[in-house]
């Protein structure tokens, strides 16, 4: 059915096309821009357009797609790089040159590329939603191809060997083809059997996180921080080193140069857990700050749907978004162009519920095929003016299990990662500490407590020292401050550009144990009557030699 454009205001377009459904995908204008129906009235529909609308004229044609905004799921997503609408950016570049102009539709999947298919079902087997039909070798991963029809069916024929996605993998007895790929609406969470509690750690290789504020598989962490506090570097370090199978990284309204850097780095670097190229386990979704705002809003949903798809194969997937504030701002821009009633700071009042619904897509699940997969989320937030009382940070706090607050004053001291060790917290702390105590060393829990204690004592002493001067403190107290400084510099500080960028739990424990041992030793010497300067001089040499 065809209609016409009757009004345009920024990214929202009114059309006179009858028969549209809410959230249906629409092609707008001669350029066939992608849009989504956001409001229906008796005589007009309001469409939110995901591409640049400049130059669009009243009277241009509009066509409904009959389906909502979808992503295409199938083998070939890994190692890919997509925009907020899942258009493959590399093929887009090869087709259109270095600049993105509107209205080009490209499919995320390559339907003609051959894949090696290993069937897991045979004639006569009953397939239901989520059953694994067979496996495709996608790089080093076994890509489980699910049965995607709601209604059950009995297999009649089954292919094997080299196939491509344009062909059917087999047929059902009722005559329908079985496809190797399918479409899924981005805003609908993918189904699973049940959710499981998250009790296992997701090792990040960041000492301050693993040791003090651990992340759980299936959990959600938020990283708020003002500009220059190293959010992006921290997220990228985690994306490189995290102990997961698959990483989905969304550059949501961020810098293009940063993404170019990330892509090159991921091509060069190896995954420390499997020694394969990092890019082979990564999907990038990129919607830089100058790409259309509405697509930025959709980008996190596009990405999380792909993440869920791999979770459903029983993989541990990590979803990282940088930054959620840009997503919320996009939501605000769209809301204001729809002339909705604004809530706090102009954000729509549904910000909190929309965000909560999104974050709930994380978790450890038993999939429809009975495997266990997890989807963990790390979301960075860019509070305006570094003010954590703003709505987006607060909305995130209500849903997240781990809160890693980045501190501008630490960043100015070039203490990276600039995680504030008094304001941050992890709700998984106890379970995961127990897990590491079991798996790494019995000393883990005790060391963690000791480390916290030292940092806390030093903070209290620092306040005193600011009044009376460091000289005015007792030797034992000055030792605490000295040790805390060592923890800060040598343990919590981690240079993202050195070999130290990734620290496995064993190394993490070894390093803190060294510092604690130094402290105990120095304390004993002090009690024996040795002067502090002398103790520090001799012990520090000892620590250095031991490394």
């Amino acid at each position, binding site marked *: 059915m065809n209609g016409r454009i009757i009004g345009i205001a920024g990214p929202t377009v009114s059309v006179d096309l009858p028969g549209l459904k809410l959230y249906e995908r629409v092609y707008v204008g001669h350029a066939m821009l992608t849009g989504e129906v956001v409001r229906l009235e008796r005589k007009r529909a309001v469409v939110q357009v995901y591409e*640049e609308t400049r130059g669009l004229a*009243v009277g241009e044609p509009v066509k409904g797609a009959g389906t909502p905004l979808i992503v295409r799921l199938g083998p070939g997503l890994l190692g890919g*790089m997509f925009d907020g609408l899942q258009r493959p950016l590399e093929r887009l570049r090869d087709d259109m040159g270095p600049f993105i102009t509107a209205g080009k539709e490209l499919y995320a999947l390559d339907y003609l590329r051959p894949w090696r298919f290993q069937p897991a079902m045979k004639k006569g087997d009953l397939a239901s939603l989520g059953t694994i039909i067979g496996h495709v070798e996608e790089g080093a991963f076994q890509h489980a191809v699910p049965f995607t029809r709601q209604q059950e069916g009995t297999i009649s024929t089954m292919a094997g060997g080299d196939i491509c996605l344009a062909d059917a993998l087999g047929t059902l007895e009722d005559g329908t083809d079985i496809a190797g790929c399918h479409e899924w609406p981005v805003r609908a969470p993918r189904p699973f059997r049940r959710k499981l509690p998250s009790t296992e750690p997701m090792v990040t290789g960041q000492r301050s996180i693993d040791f003090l504020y651990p992340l759980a598989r299936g959990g959600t962490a938020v990283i708020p921080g003002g500009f220059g506090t190293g959010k992006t570097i921290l997220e990228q370090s985690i994306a490189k080193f995290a102990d997961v199978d698959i990483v989905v990284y969304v550059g949501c309204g961020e*810098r*293009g140069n*940063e993404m170019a850097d990330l892509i090159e780095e991921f091509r060069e670097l190896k995954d420390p857990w499997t020694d394969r190229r990092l890019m082979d386990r990564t999907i990038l979704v990129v919607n830089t700050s100058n790409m259309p705002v509405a697509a930025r809003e959709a980008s996190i949903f596009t990405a999380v749907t792909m993440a869920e798809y791999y979770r459903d194969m029983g993989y541990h997937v990590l979803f990282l978004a940088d930054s959620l504030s840009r997503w919320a701002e996009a939501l605000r821009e769209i809301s204001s162009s729809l002339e909705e009633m604004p809530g706090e700071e*102009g954000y729509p009042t549904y910000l909190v519920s929309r965000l909560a619904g999104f974050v709930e897509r994380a978790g450890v699940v038993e999939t429809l095929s009975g495997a266990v997969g997890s989807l963990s989320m790390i979301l960075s937030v*860019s509070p305006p003016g570094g003010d954590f009382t703003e709505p987006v940070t607060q909305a995130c706090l209500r849903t997240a299990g781990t809160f890693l607050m980045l501190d501008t004053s630490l960043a100015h001291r070039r203490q990276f990662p600039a995680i504030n060790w008094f304001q941050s917290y992890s709700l998984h702390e106890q379970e995961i500490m127990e897990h590491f105590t079991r798996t790494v060393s019995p000393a883990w829990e005790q060391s963690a407590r000791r480390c916290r204690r030292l940092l806390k004592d030093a903070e209290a002493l620092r306040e005193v020292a*600011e009044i009376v001067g460091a000289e005015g403190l007792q030797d034992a107290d000055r030792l605490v401050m000295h040790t805390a400084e060592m923890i800060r510099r040598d343990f919590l500080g981690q240079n993202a550009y050195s070999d130290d960028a990734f620290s496995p739990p064993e190394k993490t424990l070894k390093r803190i144990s060294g510092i604690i041992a130094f402290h105990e030793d120095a304390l004993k010497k002090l009690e024996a009557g040795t002067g502090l300067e002398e103790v520090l001089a001799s012990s520090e040499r000892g620590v250095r030699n031991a490394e």
Partner: protein
Amino acid sequence: MRLAEHIYRTISTAAGPLLFLENIQQARIGEIVSVRAPDGRTTEAEVLEIAGGTVLLEVYGETRGLDIAKTTVTFTDAVRKAPLAPDMLGRVFTGSFAPRDDLPLYVPDVWKSVSGAPINPAARARPEEFIETGLSSIDCLTTLVKGQKLPVFSCAGLPSRELVARILRQARLGEAGREFAVVFAALGLTFREYSFYLEAIGAMTTGFVAFVNMADEPVMERLLAPRFALTTAEYLAFDLGMDVLVVITDMTNYCDALREVSTAREELPGRRGYPGYLYSDLASLFERAGRIQGMKGSVTMLPVVTMPEDDITHPIPDLTGYITEGQIVLSRDLHQKGVFPPIDVLPSLSRLMQRGIGEGHTREDHRKVANHLYASYAKGRELRRLEAIVGRDGMTERDRTMLDLADAFEREFVHQGEERRTISETLDRGIGLLQKFGVDVQ
């Protein structure tokens, strides 16, 4: 596509810079129209919103003297484009692309849309080529690389103009033989500043194109000028293969113009009255900096932001900092001490520095020298606060040395008056300073 121009005389409402027209056929969003007042004066306007036959126009320039009965509006069926040609080098234009130097306009080679198209992130080349500005504090500690956008955060009364002029005069963008050009956009300039910059530009040996919008010229041109400047820069860089440095001053005037226009459109105000889309709008400018794989040229941006009330958390510097790849922060304190350039290296940052320094870019010891200088100066600055409380005598010998180092760093390293230093001279000076105070550079 319409075959003829449409001319209407159907204005229903006129208020400030906005006009409502009725019964318009097939208007385009962003379409350029010309508005002819009863006295024969014409100004340009742009289509802002369309609802059926009703069109909302925003007028660039003066609306005084327009009326409802006789004013005519001509629709052109085209969005705004910039006329581009190699001949534009050496020319000075107004904010609406009219020559300011009394010479006729050249014959354009191509016309390009002023809003530009985003660079495909997959087509970007990673910025990693060092630009030598000849200023130690920037070259050593906040290194600028080709394709970067690095703003100068200044405060009212600080010599940001002089700093920009120095960089324009001294910057060396890579090897000899490569063509280098400066595109300069001045927004809301006072006459005093205008003459200063004109002199600075006149002294330049490289090619330049300038877009100048004076303080008493239309506010809408302030929004256009940087877009013309960037379209020009993209043309020079990616069509003609030049390395282009874009200097925009002052972004605070741009943001204020945006706020003024947004308020006139009766949009919902965000923080401090700036529109909610300020981030996206600024990004649509700043993100045009970059390099492209397989292409020779580059666009590097150096916008100047004057922080209102010296407040770095004000929405303008705050949002700028979130988009740009670092910032150069000027300090009132250093300026009062007579340091030029008064760059406070502690809050200053270049996010792309890691790729642009070291062997093959600057010198293999660059990173080490920079880290030691930064750490020592940071320590010295921290101790200054302590000194204010407990006094110099209450401090250890080592702490007193660090205090002296911080003073010497400001006096001898950051301060350089009229001198131009190569990166080697800068690094040697840094090493000398550290050694003098007993800091082991190894």
